[in-house]
């Protein structure tokens, strides 16, 4: 089964929620909708499920127009951010509920519920009520209820957003294997680029209601088709620098001129926007080809395995990612080096000019 959104536009209360999006998802695929809040992810999922109608455009299921078909007639399962479970039913009954509605026989229900509970580690919790479970366990129950249906379309709307970061990590590791079901189309909405990278499959980057790029996840990450796509797919936020190429030099801001090295060496003269993620900006050690500028440390955010160092330069604030615990003190003067071999170069319309397909 495949679902296609054809030039769909949704206008709600005078606001453009989704504009001219065309997207096809195929059976057996994992599709991640990545974008900030209000980018249109939930709206697109609701269109695919049949919960809402587009203002313009069509929705095709297996090539046939299904725009008006209500959700009850479609084979859909959905998991929400706010662990929705029936509060008065035990975990077992919660997972069994869609099967009871479909009137499967008791033996089949038993079998499927046990299997889903097994996959999600809920075997020992089957006779508890949702309010006796932790947040992570409640969300697992909701996910179990979604997979037990063997629905053709499984939608997950930021399912890990309300969990503590450790629980989020654990569930995130398990999700790809749990959700890989034969034949289902999986659509997963998230604001975290890391989740997209972990799930693999295909990623669609969305920004302000528009589809920016859609393709295999590593490709979208390493070879963004536009500045917007690179911005959406970066955490911490993409560092950006406007430069003017003049023969063999780069002019940064008012006074700083550096040699044009790496990918910037071969671009024609003009104004460009350089985009580079935090791991391409280093403090202290230069790269084989570096664009370097003086900076002052303003904050070091330590998360254990990585440290995000925020630095101020005359040209803006940048974020560098360093490995391990880095004890940089605010106020320290440092030298910031940007890897010129792997930086993204965009022209002033946001189109890529020189991007190394290093994936």
């Amino acid at each position, binding site marked *: 089964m495949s679902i296609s959104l054809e030039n769909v536009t949704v206008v709600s209360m005078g606001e453009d929620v989704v504009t001219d999006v065309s997207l096809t998802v195929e059976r057996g695929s994992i599709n991640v909708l990545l974008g900030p809040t209000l980018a249109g992810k939930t709206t697109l999922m609701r269109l695919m499920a049949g919960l809402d109608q587009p203002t313009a455009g069509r929705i095709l299921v297996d090539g046939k127009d299904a725009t008006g078909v209500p959700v009850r007639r479609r084979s859909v399962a959905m998991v929400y951010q706010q662990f929705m479970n029936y509060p008065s039913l035990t975990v077992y009954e919660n997972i069994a509920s869609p099967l009871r509605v479909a009137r499967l026989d008791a033996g089949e229900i038993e079998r499927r519920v046990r299997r889903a509970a097994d996959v999600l580690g809920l075997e020992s919790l089957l006779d508890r009520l949702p309010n006796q479970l932790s947040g992570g366990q409640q969300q697992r129950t909701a996910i179990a209820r979604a997979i037990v249906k063997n629905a053709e379309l499984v939608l997950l709307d930021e399912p890990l957003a309300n969990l503590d970061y450790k629980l989020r990590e654990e569930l995130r590791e398990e999700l790809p294997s749990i959700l890989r079901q034969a034949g289902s189309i999986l659509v997963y909405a998230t604001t975290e680029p890391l989740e997209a990278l972990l799930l693999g499959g295909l990623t669609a980057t969305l920004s302000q209601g528009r589809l920016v790029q859609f393709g295999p996840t590593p490709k979208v990450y390493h070879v963004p088709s536009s500045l917007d796509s690179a911005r959406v797919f970066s955490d911490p936020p993409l560092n950006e620098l406007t430069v003017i190429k003049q023969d063999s030099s780069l002019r940064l801001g008012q006074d700083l001129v550096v040699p044009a090295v790496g990918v910037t060496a071969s671009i024609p003269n003009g104004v460009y926007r350089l985009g580079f993620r935090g791991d391409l900006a280093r403090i202290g050690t230069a790269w084989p080809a570096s664009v370097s500028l003086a900076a002052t440390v303003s904050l070091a955010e330590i998360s*254990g*395995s990585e440290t995000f160092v925020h630095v101020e330069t005359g040209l803006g604030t940048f974020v560098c990612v360093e490995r391990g615990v880095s004890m940089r003190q605010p106020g320290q003067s440092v030298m910031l080096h940007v890897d010129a071999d792997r930086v993204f170069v965009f022209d002033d319309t946001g189109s890529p000019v020189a991007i190394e397909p290093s994936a």
Partner: protein
Amino acid sequence: MARITLDGIAHSYPRSATMALQPLNHVWEQGRAYALLGPSGCGKTTLLNIISGLISPSQGRVLFDGKDVTLLPTEQRNIAQVFQFPVIYDTMTVGENLAFPLKNRRMERSAIRARVAEIAELLDLTGDLPRRARALTVEAKQKVSLGRGLVRADVAAMLFDEPLTVIDPALKWHLRSKLKAVHRALDLLMIYVTHDQVEALTFADEVVVMKDGRVLQVASPAQLFERPEHTFVGYFIGSPGMNLMAAKVSDHVAHVSGQDIELGARYPKIKNGDAVIGFRPDFASLSPEGGIPVQVRRIEDLGRRRLARVALGPHEIFANVPEGVSIGGGQAGLTIQQDRLFVYVDDELVLGDRR
């Protein structure tokens, strides 16, 4: 000015069989930033409430600069607190909000004005002073809550109870850097409760890691990362956390799933040799050959690094895949940095003799 001492503090809630807080002693030094880090239910909020005076501990004493304040109510302890959601007086402007604690203490008008201006400057609120407090963004409101605590120059300690809970994730780092800047500028004792390791490790000079009412380790962020003294600390900090495997340890070798791992230190006699060895994925790397043979389950491309999920017998562990190294097929070799390989007995770190 205050140094807060907790002497034999323990607490259990009325009509509850379990102890919310196991007996502990700790000294909070003037001018330092501390974080209480742990999962929900670990007792961190209980501890904060005992320090602030909201709860009277079942046992033990609380001393402010040597003076016993255990029975004193909150308003007489001279502390300030920032809560999970902004607490502001709706009917007042930002300036009036900040002046309120000083007005109640009958401070002189011009002194109040000067102090409010100083704190507003520190928090980037100077332009907002004449505005109605309720019209601000959540982030700005939380800054006003913070400002109300800072405006009292003689406050003994500033307590934070998960203050970034309602702040938009994209703006959290902004407030984090503001808190750090405030700490540097004002040299106050600050105690911060959170379940988020990034907040704790970024903010604090020292982190108190807690679980189930017990303090597991008190150390600087770097020490918690490089030398966790408890398996829970190893697991909770770091993304992903520490790899932990049950092993039989004899002298300087650990036997895991038929493999012998050199520990680089001699360990005293351990009962039955039963121990758990732990190492962070950050200090373990994978290569096509050499090292401990492991089964490769999955290699995850996380953009700026590659993480491999491998199996050593029944144990599932993580390791880094260095750049430029390509791992094909199901088998690979795991190398662990010896000085970052730790041995835990009954979840506690055991030191080995490295001579």
